[in-house]
């Protein structure tokens, strides 16, 4: 059954913005699918609202739409493009749900679009809990006892029968959103109420507890000829009870005999056949009772999933690519295994190493959220590590996490051990290590954690060795012991800490003793066949398989695990760096440890090192490869922290000198540079003590912005309105030192903030975009919507910004990319921050301008000049690039995952992802962006307005526009009075602490469709927080700035005025090309 020739044009739906539970693994899968289909001669039409993805690069599809993933907009795309087929299985749950919606609304039928990958019946059977349970029973697979309930009473009745704890899973939500474990009646009622609310169909599955059971996943593929293979088995270190996305997971499964594994394999294949997944990949999850061996099936996803991405990286078997090929008719045995070249893809990969995935959490960004892990996924990213043994993989993985604390220096409390072992938290593994250090036995830890003793034994072996090592010294350690430590995965840095020396001393000693890292290949076949893809990981084995070439080569340091403030945007830049190098005929070497990304696909770069981004590992690769240059400016903060140490060791960093990158972070040097250039900045100072901080703040005047140096994403950044807040911050919130002082700036209230991205070869400077933020200064730039082109700036202000940017780029000898943040207050332009490196906005600006910024930046770093790239920049080598339409970028927040957290925006970044809206006017683009961000603006209904005194005049104007659009107004007393005084009809509603019904009651009752709520600037009061929380819970857009409110009014007006229309990036930039 070869390729189908009856279909030509295929629509791929992406997964939208990065959110918890759905991250860049779907950029990876969508990118692979698009590449595979186009390589086969199919035309690909792609839609995804997320501009930071590789998949939305215009080169990857024939038509690329960065448009809302909503039925109306995708229908318009289908109407315009007339695809023959829709591939539903590579865009995560979002892509699958939207495909179902399009099918059920009859849109696919209307335009003759065939659903390929998974059929609608199969999707429903897999996704609908009851249908799934019945289907599994029919094929002899057990599921945990369960009942689907639509109200709290029915849930309580079920729990009376089966007993507590029980598991709650709302239907059709991402990453288990709204789910949980209830240990008693009260918890059950609370979680159930929330889950019913969050489920789009208001259904929750209540389930018998299989807490503590062993948890497994199998990645299965099936073709139209019914050939089935298991790509990978995965065993969870954390047993049932912790969401798989929040579990440490291990491939291959470690504790199953062949009999048990085959029982599971048979079950998984039966499941796929029964559900009716005709082609493609699925993952099937099982639990096994460690006492009796009873096995239950938990769920299956009839699509490419997060685990598929992990399995692909863990084995070298590209699931999404193969799934795309199967969907267009190929059989598994007709597809070649890229790695061995000789053998077909119809086989089961076998591996001779162990892979560990560890999630990364950021509870510190969400004060008030309980850091406990359960059935709802809360991690924001993950790392994967490959080792020859589990121990080596686990220890490598732990140091890939970049927790900010040196591994082994965590502060742990002896008295908390049993509590922390019983209740899973992000710290559990550290507490397990700590328990062993304190003499706990494997059996004791197993009793408390239910973690399989095999895993615990492995951890204990390393902990025991760590104990022995600490009694030695760098001068006296023997070759054997050192080799053992390295084979166990212990880092030089950790050894150095134990021996009171620095990691380079350990490195020297290690090399002197002949203990060196070698590299092994990921080859899908445990060395049975030769591999042709240099996909490598380090180990301390006897032979090195790196086999470096003697070509000219450049190494790119990636951005590590996704986290808030450093996500897919940087992976986008790294991938482009790699593509650009290959275009230049230079070998590209990628180093990264994030399994979700496109950069860790084995065919993105010439060579891939799946390694932690630490000095030790990067030096090992450097020593082996001897690259001609290393790129550090594309991967965010992670590689930048390595830049100076690497440069000191003679590693050739290309592009902007790391010293100049560092200079921009050094307040004193940078302040002097600004003075010399005559570029104004808000008054500022630095402090290394509480008293000094108060003195500096007092001198420059409140409010002040206080933050630590060297962070990304506004980590631990606050606006302090008085001395008490400064004191509290210095005491509690931040660590500082002589090297790393606290930075204090005058905070410019009500200023307009501007982001600028520019390209520079240090002679010419080309400004790629001047982005105007929609929220005022004070909201982190990553959390603010912004628009290209700027809307309210005067030509004179734009000129000033251009002038400053050019002066800064030249002064810092920027070669490559630079980002500058400005604020405009009372007409005056101030520089807030300069980052001579790739920024979060690079992909957005690239897509809006149609100019591939990272590609040009790489050329500049290789020594070429901007004028050599004039064919890519529309002939421009200076000035500012133009954009042919309005492009709005909006952030997406994870607040619905963190009950109890105040969703107010501030200087600390908390968004996980972003979307882009395209329009002929600002309102249209903003409306699309808000829709894509999951906070669609209402077209009618009631607007709730409550603003502080100095916003009242502006609020009246905005309210007038909403009233003119036919909206009802409700306001709190003071605001209502202002509205009424201006002749607007407004109802009055109580504040939360004034009585009932209050604003929260109205939100709950669905009587409010839009909330405009500005704070007084002081710390959040209970009232404000309650309103913002309720708005998040009940999915009412809540706007907390006046500029945001005006934008919302523009958007609603546009929505009323303009038709539903869509533009592909190719179309937008063709128009531009003809205009130039």
């Amino acid at each position, binding site marked *: 059954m070869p390729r189908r020739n009856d279909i030509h044009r295929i629509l791929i739906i992406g997964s939208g913005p990065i959110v918890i539970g759905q991250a860049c693994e779907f950029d990876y899968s969508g990118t692979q699918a698009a590449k595979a289909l186009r390589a086969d001669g199919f035309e690909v039409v792609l839609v995804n609202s997320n501009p930071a993805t590789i998949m939305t690069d215009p080169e990857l599809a024939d038509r690329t739409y960065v448009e809302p993933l909503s039925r109306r907009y995708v229908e318009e795309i289908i109407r315009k493009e007339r695809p023959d087929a829709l591939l539903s299985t590579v865009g995560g749950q979002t892509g699958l749900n939207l495909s179902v919606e399009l099918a059920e609304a009859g849109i696919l039928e209307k335009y003759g679009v065939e659903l390929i990958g998974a059929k609608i019946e199969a999707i429903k059977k897999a996704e609908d809990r009851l249908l799934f349970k019945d289907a599994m029973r029919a094929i002899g*697979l057990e599921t945990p006892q369960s009942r689907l309930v639509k109200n709290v009473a029915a849930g309580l009745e079920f729990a009376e029968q089966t007993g507590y704890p029980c598991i709650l899973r709302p239907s059709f939500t991402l990453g288990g959103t709204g789910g949980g474990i209830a240990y008693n009646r009260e918890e059950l009622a609370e979680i159930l109420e929330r889950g019913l609310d969050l489920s789009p169909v208001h259904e929750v599955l209540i389930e018998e507890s299989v807490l503590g059971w062993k948890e497994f996943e199998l990645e299965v593929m099936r073709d139209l000829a*019914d*050939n089935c293979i*298991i790509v990978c*088995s995965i065993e969870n270190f954390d047993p049932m009870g912790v969401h798989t996305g929040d579990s440490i997971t291990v491939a*291959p*499964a*470690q*504790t*199953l*005999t*062949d*009999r*048990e*594994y*085959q*029982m599971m*394999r*048979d079950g998984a294949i039966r499941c796929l056949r029964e559900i009716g997944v005709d082609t493609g990949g699925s993952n099937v999850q099982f639990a*096994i009772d*460690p*006492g*009796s*061996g*009873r*096995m*239950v099936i938990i769920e299956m996803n009839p699509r490419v999933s997060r685990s598929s991405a992990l399995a692909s990286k863990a084995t070298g078997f590209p699931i999404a690519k193969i799934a795309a090929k199967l969907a267009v008719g190929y*059989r*598994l*045995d007709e597809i070649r295994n890229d790695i061995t070249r*000789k*053998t*077909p893809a*119809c*086989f*089961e*990969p*076998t*591996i*001779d190493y*162990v892979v560990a995935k560890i999630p990364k959490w950021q509870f510190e960004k969400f004060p008030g959220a309980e850091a406990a892990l359960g059935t709802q996924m809360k991690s924001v990213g993950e790392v994967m590590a490959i080792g*020859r*043994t589990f121990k080596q993989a686990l220890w490598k993985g732990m140091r890939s996490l970049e927790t900010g604390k040196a591994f082994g220096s965590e502060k742990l409390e002896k008295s908390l051990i049993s509590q922390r072992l019983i209740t899973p938290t992000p710290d559990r593994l550290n507490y397990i290590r700590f328990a062993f250090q304190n003499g706990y036995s*494997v059996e004791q830890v197993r009793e408390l954690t239910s973690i*399989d*003793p*095999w895993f615990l*034994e492995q951890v204990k072996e390393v902990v025991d060795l760590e104990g022995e090592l600490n009694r030695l010294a760098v001068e006296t350690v023997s070759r054997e012991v050192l080799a053992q430590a390295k*084979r166990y995965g212990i880092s030089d840095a950790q050894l150095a800490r134990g021996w009171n020396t620095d990691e380079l001393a350990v490195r020297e000693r290690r090399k002197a003793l002949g203990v060196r890292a070698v590299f*092994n290949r990921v080859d899908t*076949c*445990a*060395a*049975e*066949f*030769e591999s042709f893809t240099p996909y490598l990981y380090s180990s301390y*084995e*006897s*032979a090195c*398989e790196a086999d470096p070439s003697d070509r000219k080569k450049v190494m790119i340091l990636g951005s590590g695990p996704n986290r808030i403030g450093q996500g897919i945007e940087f992976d986008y830049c790294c991938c482009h760096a790699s593509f650009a190098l290959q275009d230049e005929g230079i070998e590209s070497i990628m180093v990264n440890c994030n399994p979700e990304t496109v950069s860790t696909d084995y065919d993105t770069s010439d060579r891939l090192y799946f390694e932690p981004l630490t000095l030790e590992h990067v030096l090992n690769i450097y020593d082996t490869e001897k690259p001609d240059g290393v790129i550090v400016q594309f991967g965010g903060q992670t590689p930048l922290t390595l830049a100076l140490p690497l440069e000191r060791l003679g590693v050739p960093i290309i592009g902007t000198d790391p010293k100049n990158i560092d200079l921009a972070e050094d307040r004193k040097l940078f302040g002097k540079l600004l003075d010399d250039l005559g570029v104004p900045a808000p008054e500022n100072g630095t402090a290394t003590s509480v008293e000094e901080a108060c003195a500096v703040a007092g001198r420059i005047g409140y409010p002040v912005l206080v933050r630590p140096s060297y962070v990304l994403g506004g980590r631990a950044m606050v606006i302090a309105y008085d001395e008490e807040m400064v004191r509290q911050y210095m005491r509690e919130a931040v660590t500082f030192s002589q090297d790393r002082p606290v930075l204090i700036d005058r905070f410019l209230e009500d200023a307009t903030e501007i982001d600028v991205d520019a390209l520079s070869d240090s002679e010419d400077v080309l400004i790629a975009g001047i982005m105007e933020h929609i929220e005022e200064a004070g909201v982190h730039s990553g959390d603010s919507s912004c628009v290209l082109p700027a809307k309210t700036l005067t030509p004179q202000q734009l000129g000033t910004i251009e002038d400053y940017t050019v002066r800064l780029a030249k002064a810092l000898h920027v070669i490559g990319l630079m980002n500058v943040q400005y604020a405009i207050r009372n007409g005056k332009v101030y520089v807030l921050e300069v980052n001579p490196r790739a920024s979060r906005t690079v992909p957005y600006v690239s897509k809006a301008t149609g100019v591939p910024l990272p590609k040009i930046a790489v050329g500049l770093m290789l020594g070429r000049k901007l004028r050599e790239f004039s064919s890519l920049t529309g002939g421009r080598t200076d000035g500012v690039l133009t954009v042919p339409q309005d492009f709005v970028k909006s952030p997406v927040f994870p607040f619905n995952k963190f009950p109890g957290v105040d969703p107010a925006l501030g200087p600390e970044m908390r968004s996980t992802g972003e979307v882009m809206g395209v329009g002929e006017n600002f309102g249209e683009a903003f409306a699309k962006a808000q829709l894509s961000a999951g906070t669609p603006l209402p077209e009618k209904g009631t607007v709730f307005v409550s603003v502080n005194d100095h916003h009242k005049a502006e609020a009246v104007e905005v309210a007038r526009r909403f009233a003119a659009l036919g909206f009802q107004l409700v306001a709190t007393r003071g605001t209502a009075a202002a509205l009424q005084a201006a002749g607007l009809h407004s109802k009055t509603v109580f504040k939360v602490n004034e009585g009932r019904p209050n604003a929260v009651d109205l939100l709950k009752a669905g009587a409010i469709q839009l909330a405009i709520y500005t704070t007084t600037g002081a710390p959040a009061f209970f009232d404000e927080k309650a309103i913002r929380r309720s708005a998040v819970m009940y999915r009412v857009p809540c706007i907390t700035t006046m500029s945001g409110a005006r934008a919302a009014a523009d958007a609603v007006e546009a929505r009323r005025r303009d038709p539903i229309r869509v533009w592909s990036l190719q179309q937008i930039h063709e128009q531009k090309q003809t205009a130039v």
Partner: protein
Amino acid sequence: MSSAFLALEDGTVFQGRSFGAPAERSGEVVFNTALTGYQEVFTDPSYAGQIVILTNPQIGNYGTTPEDSEATRPYIEGLAVREFSPITSNWRSDEDARRFLAKHDIPIISELDTRALVRHLRAQGVMRGVLSAIESDARKLVEKARRIPRMAGLDLASRVSTTATYSWNEPVEACSPSEHIPPAPEPRFHVVAYDFGIKHNILRRLVQAGCRVTVVPALTAAEDVLELAPDGIFLSNGPGDPEPLETQVSNVRKLIGKKPVFGICLGHQILGLAVGGRTYKLKFGHRGANHPVINRLTERVEITSHNHGFAVDPDSLNLNEVEITHVNLNDQTLEGFRHRHHPVFCVQYHPEAAPGPHDSHYLFDDFVKLMENEQ
């Protein structure tokens, strides 16, 4: 921590940690790439005369259990692994894997760079070797390795075969309350199985398919087999080179056309020789649980379990007499054929799995159908 050495005939010597019996054993050094099923590998008589490298780096994790043995004792000569678990974790385990081998004086070398060793064998072909936990003079070990007999030309099948005829009626037992294996039907057919090193799961699978099995020694004469009034004859797997097995081949030749015949692995090779074909030694064999085999009759791909160092040369077969039914998609080697005129078929791989995927269980039913047709 005591050392162990694995010395190869080409002079390569690997040092590791002795983790098993303080013993020295020799044999052909081969590697198996399966991720599960080390106990089945230890106890598969086809590994007689071989030192086995397991490419899965974590071995011993789940211990051993009597139900998972493929014979009454382990047959491997020695075991080479990257890491051997000091503890056992599985609800079915009643003995740790190290003791399981130690009881039979089988040495284990662990902490070994198995990947480097496998790459060496992949490039150079399998070779003779000595695994020693008692001798540390590398030169002596290499000398010993050069003195042991080569696998080619070796009749190991007769050596591991049963000496007495016995009957077998145990079906497949479930490994978990959640494994639903239908009860074995009342036996309708009598199968006589030649034991060239037969795996228990073949016998269990035959019972499961509705057979009563009589197992006979490898050198049982064809006439004596027919005397037992079988409905079908089964030719088992086994170790060593098929070519010296002239008696067995001539017995099988006499049985073709008399009764339905089904052969697995060595049984397949013997049938290949019996119909006039040739066998040859593979460079490094097929040992694993992930080989794709296409069934030319159904065009379906099966993921199959393999353990063989020799193969039947498809070019040596008279295609007017036999039809090729199964081919390995990795290297196009012959994996199965059937006779065009007689009820005879065979496969090179292991449909009984143990260890490995269950994709090919249907072949036991095919055998039963063949016997049904003959009645």
